[in-house]
């Protein structure tokens, strides 16, 4: 695995690890899906994973969430092996899994009910989460009455509401239009900045990855292994439009694009 390291990144490397993959291989019968993969995610880091379809990007997230067990190797979460469903992470999937019989508010409140958060606190957390994704005023609407993009934001708010320290995001903005995506990127960067949470963000959109991440991992074709890891040394806090127009951005794009090897 090739690494492009920056000087500032070296300083954070010794921080404690949020997630670590150690020689992880995933096979479904004879189907070799992913690995062997070794990868560390540091606390408070924004890591993006890009790669062609079917390279096992989502598989990596499922391993951390505990919905999938590796065929060999080990996955550690905050220093302990992942055993069973990992309730500590906030997992935003491509599908929004909104409950159609609950209102927007009710859906966002769901994880708080599961966690027995007192109602007064829950109300406040729901409100904050809805504000972050720009859905205030839609508390009483049912998912069916919302567009796909808005439903996805409900799913994001639902995860934000219980304030996890690690977010796993699997192409969460895939269903949004370009303008809304940009707005959500801004919101996400703000959330990351304010909460200091760790983000593992899976996408196939290089631009999205460079804009958001501290580090971008490029996965190879199936069976996916990390092919290239690039530190994105763009200034923080980032102004999305500014950094996308900067020459450094273009250089990162070129490097990563070459590594993606789409042809």
């Amino acid at each position: 695995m090739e690494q492009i390291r920056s000087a500032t990144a070296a300083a954070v490397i010794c921080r404690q690890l949020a997630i670590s993959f150690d020689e992880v291989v995933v096979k479904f019968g004879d189907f070799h899906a992913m690995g062997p993969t070794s990868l560390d995610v540091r606390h408070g880091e924004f890591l993006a994973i890009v790669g062609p379809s079917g390279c096992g990007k989502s598989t990596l997230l499922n391993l951390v969430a505990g919905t999938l067990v590796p065929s060999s190797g080990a996955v550690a979460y905050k220093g302990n092996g992942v055993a069973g469903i990992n309730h500590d992470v906030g997992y935003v999937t491509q599908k929004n899994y909104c409950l159609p019989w609950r209102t927007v508010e009710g859906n966002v409140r769901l994880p708080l009910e599961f966690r027995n958060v007192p109602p007064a606190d829950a109300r406040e957390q729901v409100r904050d989460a809805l504000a972050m994704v720009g859905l205030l005023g839609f508390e009483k609407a049912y998912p069916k009455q919302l567009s796909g993009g808005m439903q996805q934001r409900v799913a994001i708010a639902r995860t934000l509401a219980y304030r996890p320290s690690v977010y796993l995001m699997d192409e969460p903005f895939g269903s949004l239009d370009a303008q809304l995506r940009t707005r959500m990127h801004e919101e996400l960067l703000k959330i990351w900045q304010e909460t200091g949470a760790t983000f593992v963000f899976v996408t196939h959109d290089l631009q999205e990855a460079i804009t958001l991440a501290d580090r971008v991992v490029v996965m190879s074709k199936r069976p996916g292994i990390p092919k290239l890891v690039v530190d994105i040394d763009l200034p923080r806090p980032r102004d999305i439009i500014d950094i996308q127009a900067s020459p450094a951005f273009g250089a990162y794009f070129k490097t990563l694009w070459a590594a993606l090897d789409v042809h």
Partner: protein
Amino acid sequence: MAIDNRQPARHGWRFFVGSNTFLQVLVGIVGLAFWEAASRSFDLDFWISSPTAVATELVRWERSGHLWVDLRVTMTEASLGFIVGCIAGGFTGFVLGWTQRLGDILEPYIVALYSIPKIALAPLFVLWLGIGVTNKVMFAAMLVFFIVFFTTYRGVRSVDRELVQNAWLLGANRWDIWTKIAIPYSAVWMLTGLRIALPDALIGAIVGEFVASDAGVGYRIKEATAFVNTAGVFAGLFVLLLISLCLLSLLKLIENRTLRWQAGDGAIATEPGH
């Protein structure tokens, strides 16, 4: 529910005469008039009775004081049977639906039992439980059980497993999964089951009364038949009609409150600030 906005609001007798409610009432009145006329002009009173004779019979029934007693007996049997059947059917359906393996193993047996013409079991219930209220309650409960079992079973099996897994990830425990995901998810099925089962509860009570009883609406119908009192039979049927209409509208009310989220089709909310 949805109001049809395509029709502009109109007033006056023209609108009144054209309204559905008016036409529906009209059909009813015309029907009753035909019945009465047919009965009188062809001397069919013995076979089909007549609305006036049925009304007279209803008044007589009420005056004798039996009507309310009969109603109470039949309603008690039907509603207790309904409740017992729903609890048993709902519980069994949920358990077998949720634990796939157990469901797969036992399903053929329940289907086999279901395929027995259940009315034929009524004498057996007399044998087991005597001719009192218990017999009718259990018979009605059995009819209800099967309907509620199958709808709940299907409903629970249709629960989206990915949705359940997502709930686990969001921190749910087993109880949360049942009460907040599985039951609401299958509520549409369950409520459909309840609606189909409700008339069955009444059928169970009436059949039970036909087989052996000394009170109840079914008993009164049987008695009227024995005395070749056609109007009495029709009066009994009329009372049954009223009971089931009341029960169904009650259930509709519950359904509307529970499944409110299904209403409001296609009303896409607009983005804030767009």
